[in-house]
């Protein structure tokens, strides 16, 4: 990895009871590296002895290099990263973040960009809309949230935007919406798992070009049963507790492990399996089913069984 970015928090704004916006500026002044809509940064947190590294999409204008903004939804049932951001990060907090990485970029070939956002899934689209605004490209946003009170940035989004609220029983009319798009439209979806699956299935059924439908795939690692792993190259055995990922456990043990997205999408942390006696719980979007006996993505995937040894 390149050197990390040393930043200071200059703004914290509660957009609603669940979602906060944070602005990071470089501690030494100056400008941050350029990014493009859809990019994320990994935010490092020292949470009372536990090191957390959570990826967050950048939601600010990519043309503004004086600072980056992320928008974080508090997940009370999650592993604690979003709770740390909400409860402990304040104006003046000094933090370390990664360079931006984009695994969900705009496709420049599109004649029109159609955005489908579910809840906090609005974050990459906010940056993309800024970006397209600068070049005058055609876009349309369909944004579903629970109710107007939880619709982050609803008041700031201008232009061809449609809102849908679960509490009003109003839902994106997906089939009609996709069917009436002109050929050459690219569709982008970011939201809960169920929404991604719905969009994927509907787009396939209607015959939309597979490579014209884009998904924000990376997801926070979910907890699971604890397990042990042998790291063959490092010559040691580590324990992975319920609320830690294998990648995080390796990092805590001082083992150097590459990563980019920490959410099972980019492929950077892929490890070869040396010994397997048990079942790997593959939770990534990277490995092909044919790789499931020989590789593991330590950022999200877990293991249950007698023995797992990996080449790390």
């Amino acid at each position, binding site marked *: 990895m390149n050197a990390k970015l040393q930043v200071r928090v200059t703004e914290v704004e509660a957009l609603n009871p669940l979602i906060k916006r944070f602005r990071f500026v470089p501690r030494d002044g100056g400008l941050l590296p350029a990014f493009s809509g859809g990019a994320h940064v990994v935010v490092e947190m020292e949470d009372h002895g536990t090191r957390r590294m959570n990826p967050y999409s950048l939601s600010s204008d990519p043309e503004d290099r004086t600072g980056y903004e992320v928008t974080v939804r508090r997940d009370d049932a999650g592993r604690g990263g979003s709770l740390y951001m909400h409860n402990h990060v304040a104006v003046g907090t000094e933090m370390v973040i990664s360079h931006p990485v984009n695994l969900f970029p705009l*496709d420049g*070939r*599109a*004649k*029109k960009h159609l955005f489908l956002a579910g809840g906090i899934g609005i974050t990459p689209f906010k940056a993309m809309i800024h970006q397209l605004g600068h070049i005058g490209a055609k876009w349309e946003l369909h944004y579903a949230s629970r109710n107007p009170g939880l619709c982050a940035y609803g008041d700031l989004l201008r232009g061809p935007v449609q809102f849908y609220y679960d509490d009003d029983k109003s839902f994106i009319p997906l089939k009609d919406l*996709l*069917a*009436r*798009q*002109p*050929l*050459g*439209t*690219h*569709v982008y979806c970011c939201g809960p798992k169920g929404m991604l699956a719905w969009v994927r299935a509907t787009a*396939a*059924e*209607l*015959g*939309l*070009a*597979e*490579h*014209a439908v884009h998904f924000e795939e990376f997801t926070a690692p979910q907890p699971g049963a604890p397990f042990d792993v042998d790291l063959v190259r490092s010559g040691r055995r580590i324990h992975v507790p319920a609320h830690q990922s294998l990648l995080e456990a390796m990092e805590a043990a001082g083992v150097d492990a590459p990563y980019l997205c920490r959410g099972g999408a980019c492929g950077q942390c892929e490890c070869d399996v040396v010994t397997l006696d048990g079942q790997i719980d593959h939770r990534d979007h990277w490995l092909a089913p044919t790789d499931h006996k020989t590789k593991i993505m330590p950022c999200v995937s877990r293991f249950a069984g007698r023995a797992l040894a990996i080449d790390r």
Partner: protein
Amino acid sequence: MKDATMSLPPSILSRPVYGVLAPRPGLAHLVIADGAGAGAVADLFAADPGIAGRAHVLYTPGPDGGDDWAVIEALGAAQAQRAASVPTLLFRLARVLLDAKAGTQCYLAGSEGLIGQAERDLMAQGVPHQDIQKEHRGSTVRRVQCVHCKGITEAVRTDPFVCSHCGLSLYVRDHYSRRLAAFQGVCIDAEEPGNIPPAVEKFA
């Protein structure tokens, strides 16, 4: 040569390869073919009888003059139009694309020149090239761009050949441009002007 798929020898990575048209779900099916490509269209419609009712076929005779319009006409497509030439077919295609919807499956069949130019126009519309199905049938003549004057010569049969624009003798490479829908032609006697090997009939 009707309905025969001429085998294309293995080559460098940038040389296009072709598959076999297979039915995919779609709200509409846009089918573009020339010459012997009519056979591939007939096979596609036979594989899924549901396609005809939602199909729009644009057809023109092949570079060898082969005209299987009767095959297309008999398929019962919702719309089928015969164009007099590739340029007039592409003119009609531009009009069709103005109203085409995102759920349109695109199928191309026949000679490489027709397939390449239709693919280029679909790509310009925003359709990813990986999602356009292509099946080569019939003639193997090439559409070649002279890298020197940039002029394109259609239906090239020999290697080398004389550029129809600037008159240089060009060696026909397998290097292909998807954006130009053409193979690359490079001056064959640049080092030794006048030393031009005899033209060999390579493409038919």
